């Protein structure tokens, strides 16, 4: 039984007088608190995507390498906590692998768990709900309920991989909507700034952490080593782009240089820093055109350095030191943004 779709008529109020109202509005102000919120909303969505991808790839990696020294397996899992800057140890009992997956997904006490990242993203979005698009809000809200809903646990247990993939898809969708349903004004620029600063920081930590573990372990056979460095590329969603440029065994320096210095690839650190810098420059020119903010200066210096660097520079400095400098600069820039724009 189907009745005609348009059979209810919701009538517009008849115009009682002929007067028309029309006002063209000038550029809208951006509340400092709103800027703060959209920035963190975007950062947390980006972070949740990294967490989901790192968990997903870690699971697959361990299947791929097969029999491995138990200590190294445990260390691999623990390294996830280092990459995501989670202090302390994992609660609960049972195999470390399961504990970490649960801890990083559902734990309410763990600030970097998926549930917390997405909740904070949504909390921030809720505070600026009227200024982001309906589509963005619904997307984020749906993602939130997919983690908080009654069926979240059972979906996770049925297939952790699918679960992580769905979080990543949520982030992709959200970022696409951000680009295509929001005016590319200051508000959008703050979302981009947050996203690229987060990507810079997490990517740098992923490479550095993996490098530490692998170089400290017993020398690995080449196939195993390849698998590990492939995992690093996968954790940064960069395996295919890398393969277009390089074939053969994976050399740590080559991988680190690609993830750090590649110019046109949106997952690389150089690309991220360059975009964050551009956004900051545009925000500054809208708010205070005559002065350069500290954050813009820090990112500008870092960007220039990465623009002209080559793999040898990374070798000379050493991978950990080189990446540490990037992390420090990104953190310092984030603090400068905070004091320049959010704390009026």
């Amino acid at each position, binding site marked *: 039984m189907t009745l*005609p779709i348009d059979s*209810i008529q*919701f009538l*517009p109020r008849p115009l009682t007088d002929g007067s028309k109202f029309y006002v063209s509005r000038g550029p809208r102000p951006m509340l400092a608190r709103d800027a703060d919120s959209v920035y963190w909303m975007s950062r947390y969505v980006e972070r949740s995507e990294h967490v989901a991808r790192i968990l997903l790839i870690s699971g697959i990696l361990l299947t791929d390498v097969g029999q491995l020294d138990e200590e190294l397996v445990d260390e691999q899992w623990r390294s996830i906590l280092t990459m995501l800057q989670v202090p302390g140890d994992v609660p609960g009992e049972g195999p470390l692998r399961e504990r970490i997956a649960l801890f990083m997904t559902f734990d309410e006490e763990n600030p970097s768990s998926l549930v917390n990242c997405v909740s904070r993203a949504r909390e921030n979005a809720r505070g600026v709900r*009227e200024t982001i698009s309906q589509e963005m809000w*619904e997307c984020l809200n749906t993602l939130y309920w997919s983690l908080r809903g009654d069926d979240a646990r059972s979906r996770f247990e049925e297939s952790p991989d699918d679960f992580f993939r769905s979080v990543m898809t949520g982030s992709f969708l959200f970022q696409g909507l951000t680009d295509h349903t929001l005016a590319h004004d200051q508000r959008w620029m703050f979302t981009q700034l947050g996203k690229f600063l987060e990507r810079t920081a997490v990517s740098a930590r992923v490479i550095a952490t993996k490098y530490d573990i692998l170089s400290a372990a017993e020398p690995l056979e080449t196939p195993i080593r390849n698998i590990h460095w492939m995992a690093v590329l996968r954790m940064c969603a960069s395996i295919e782009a890398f393969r277009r440029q390089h074939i053969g065994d994976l050399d740590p320096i080559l991988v680190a240089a690609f993830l750090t210095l590649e110019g046109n690839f949106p997952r690389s650190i150089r690309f991220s820093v360059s975009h964050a810098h551009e956004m900051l420059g545009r925000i500054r020119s*809208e708010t205070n055109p005559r002065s350069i903010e500290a954050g813009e200066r820090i990112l500008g210096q870092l960007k220039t350095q990465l623009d002209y660097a080559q793999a040898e520079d990374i070798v000379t400095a050493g991978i950990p030191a080189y990446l540490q400098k990037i992390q420090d600069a990104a953190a310092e820039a984030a603090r400068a943004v905070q004091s320049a724009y959010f704390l*009026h």
Partner: protein
Amino acid sequence: MFKQYDVDGLYDEMFVAPGEPRSHYAAVSKGLNMLGVGAFQRRRQMADVSFRNQGITFTVYGDQRGVEKIFPFDLVPRIVPANEWETIERGLVQRITALNLFCQDIYHEQRILRERVIPADLIYGAKMFRREMFGVNVPRNIYIHICGTDLIRNREGQYFVLEDNGRTPSGVSYVLENRAVMKRVFPGLFTTYRVRAIEDYPFNLLQCLRHVSPQAMDDPSIVVLSPGIYNSAYFEHSFLARQMGVELVEGRDLVVENNFVYMRTTAGLRRVDVIYRRVDDDFLDPLCFRSESVLGVPGLMNAYRVGNVALVNAVGTGVSDDKAVYPYVPAMIKFYLGQDAILPNVKTYLCAEEDDRKFVLENLDKLVVKATNESGGYGMIMGHQATREEREKFAELIKADPRNYIGQPIIELSQHPSFVDDHFEGRRVDLRPYILYGEKVIVMPGGLTRVALRKGSLVVNSSQGGGSKDTWVLEDEDAEEETPHA
């Protein structure tokens, strides 16, 4: 679906008698019967998921887990025929006009007190009377720009005004969202209705706000002031700001300098002209009212008093929706407008008056007693449903502070079919239409029909677990030139 449905001797909005729908409900009743239980349940799930994913929620206080709840939505629309609405509309326009004149009078000449139409001590004893507003001229002399008036019907179907909400009435966002969801979930179920549109409410509200801007300009800076995301009505604050395209601010976003109000933006301070505040008087300005408030803006009242910013609704309107002042509204209408009230009040006993108090105490088991300044179904007792101890406790409260209580006969509210499990049962309803007072007075053709959660319950407040319905006001059939459907 209506096989076991009983009207229970009440006024039923949909049925005259079992199996016999009122004429304006005939098509709905037929459509529902054709749809069947399974399909109806699927539609209901669709609606729930839609509400949840859109985040159309409200917050229940004192509930640790899952504080965010979906406002239960009841899919069967409440239908108000054109002729009934015509009376309601006239009655509401009359009422908001009188209430505004009353506020203006109370904070200026006080003619109504001097002529002893209303006892002066009743006004001065009102908790929401604001001495700070005495002699203050508010923009365009409008105090209550937005009013939500609660209407109920008795056993005979007669409409009464139960209360006026002239401070910061909420719920209008649910009215608009209910309609939107209804269109999505039931695009084809109900035929042959011509329902009046309500979608222009945000536009009318914006016009109303522009009208009171202290600066004469086309595009004054208007903001919605919210207590923040943990407030129960945050969804609505955000919704209205979005619909109007204005900034949603919290107290910490605003700052007062030299008696002007500014908001903090990424490019520094920017002046604010009109504040649609959804923060109670008490919390607006810690320098003037409650000093511990962190929701407000220090210095805001001074900026307001010198006329540099408009507050909507004005400060001090609570004096007009005090439940002990309510019985005098018909007298106000007579006094200011020289007219008889079109919509009657419910008979009310003021515990402050000796005879009334005696009557209330003697008849506690037959009355509903309410604290004069509470809302949301808090601080009240339904005498016939309360235990003996509860009644005795309430009697003590009344004796201790008689000014703070009123009694009213228990009205058997009209009921409307609600879907429960797999069939329909009657649930009591009320109706809250929204009135805007700006350049002209506009009554939204519709409103929030609130539904009691449990069978027999007379409490419809959302904070007490009630739900809501879409409310259809029908276009006048006589005014119609042609019938849209064969």
